[in-house]
């Protein structure tokens, strides 16, 4: 039995929309091992993004505890969560979410601004991360000068630059064509296999889920397990 990296115990998340209560997650239990590559599937509105937000310390549960790598996120303050996110987790979104005014390298450097690293060190690390995602030659391009696949590679470089253990991907290939999606998924698999990153990936695409070690299905805020190879 491998080490557990992330653990959800009895997690519920309720949103209050005016008078209406939206029960998004109900008493969810989940354990994610270190080194896992987990695909999370399910219909729209089933709570996948909500779950990812909880695991990434972007949101707090209404009830239950969320712990990642020994840190109990559900009981941390907002600024503690900010500090934690800066070094422990990388986010990858469907629409890349790069800053359009910055070059690829500067985008990748952003998380390092929160450290005490020198400008030189930051630049070096950013170059290394861009090399890992295969975009070293595009370091000085702005996002709008890049293709969608390239933008997503920059976003991945930004997610790994501070060397977090956990990568959270919300439909990372949702906006890409099949072959570009396969490249990105291949990159994620290599980050998992070769760099030991634990990855949780939300996807609507069964082929994408095939890249993962296992797939969880979510429906109406509940999880059901269907292990894959």
């Amino acid at each position: 039995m491998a080490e557990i990296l992330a653990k959800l115990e009895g997690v519920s998340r309720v949103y209050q929309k005016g008078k209406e209560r939206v029960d998004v997650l109900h008493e969810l239990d989940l354990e994610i091992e270190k080194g896992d590559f987990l695909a999370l599937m399910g219909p729209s509105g089933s709570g996948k993004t909500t779950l990812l937000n909880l695991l990434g310390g972007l949101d707090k549960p209404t009830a239950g505890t969320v712990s990642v790598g020994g840190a109990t996120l559900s009981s941390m303050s907002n600024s503690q969560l900010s500090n934690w996110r800066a070094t422990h987790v990388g986010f990858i979104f469907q629409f890349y979410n790069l800053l359009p005014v910055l070059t690829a390298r500067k985008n990748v450097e952003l998380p390092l601004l929160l450290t005490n690293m020198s400008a030189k060190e930051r630049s070096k690390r950013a170059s290394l991360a861009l090399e890992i995602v295969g975009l070293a030659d595009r370091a000085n391009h702005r996002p709008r000068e890049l293709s969608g696949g390239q933008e997503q590679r920059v976003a991945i470089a930004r997610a790994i630059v501070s060397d977090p253990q956990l990568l959270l991907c919300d439909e990372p290939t949702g906006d890409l064509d099949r072959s570009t999606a396969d490249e990105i998924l291949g990159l994620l698999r290599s980050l998992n296999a070769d760099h030991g990153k634990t990855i949780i990936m939300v996807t609507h695409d069964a082929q994408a889920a095939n890249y993962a070690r296992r797939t969880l299905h979510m429906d109406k805020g509940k999880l059901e397990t269907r292990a894959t190879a």
Partner: protein
Amino acid sequence: MKYFGLIWKNAWRKKIRTSLTILSVLVAFLLFALLNAIGYAFRAGEDVSSAERLVVIHKISLINPLPISYEARIASTPGVAEVTHASWFGGYYQEKRNQFAQFPVDIKEYFALYPELIIAPEQLEAAAQNRIGTIVGHELAEQFGWKLGDRIPIQATIWTKADGGRTWEFELEGIMRSNDPRGSTAFMLFNHDYFDEARAFGKGTAGWYVLRIAPGADPVEVANAIDAQFANSPNETETSTEAAFAASFAKQFGNIAMIVQLILGAVFFTLLLVAGNTMSQSVRERIPELAVLKTLGFRDSTVLGIVLSESILIIALGGLLGLGIGWVLVQGMAQQLSASLPGVYLSPQALLLAVGIMIGAGIFAGFFPALKAMRLSIVDALARG
């Protein structure tokens, strides 16, 4: 400082919008520099005036002359250390536009009362000895290219000579300057005796008296004592401090300071609206980007600081450019106006105030957008993006 690149790039996300905002800030601070420098000229008289000196004028107005016999009576008033007289000549050199102040005075007494005026002792002596001798400020000598020994004809606008002539000839015997960098010497002094003998009317009078109070004497008491002496005479007096005198002199030009402040107030109000609008648009446009920064671990307070810094940066860019251009223009203006409006000057205090206004306006314009950015919920903002 490591965030500077990020702040700078964000400030220029819409180049035209930022340029226009900077331009409007530039104009505001350019106006500030010019108006402040001119306002300074009007205030200079008050600021360099001495608290130890009192000025005695005719109660009706500055224009009404006082008998020269008053000098001895003022001198004997308790609390008066020294007294001298001066008058307004109101002439010009060659052309009407070359107007500057000329004062018929007792040259030696005058310099004794104004120790801030610096002159070589031999020049002072020569001017006093020469009936038509004159001393001018270095500003005038430079402007008109006068050298010691030059003959300077001045056209009178008030004081015709007894022979009917309007041209008064003087011989330049001395050039003075002030030991106070703010003090102007753009005026001309000459012998009252020559003036009084040669003028067609008004003989035996002086325009006003200037006195120094004795150490320890109360200026208010001395002023009251002097005015009491001449009460109920045909020529009643009004004695005030030099500062009050300078202020009433400046008031002849209208309440410049207030007009200046009103204009600046309107300009800066507009500036706040323009800059505030730029910042709130800029923040509204990049809600998702700000949410991403927070996702990456930027704290709420850091995001607040980044947006505020951006606002201050834009205003400081325009403001410093405006001040810089204003500074150059003020130098030119000071030279052009050195005779007619001496003391045009952009003071270090004004520059400091301008920088303070930049920071204040930057914070003010950026405050609500920055607060909005700080309070932004990541989950909501990303769901929208």
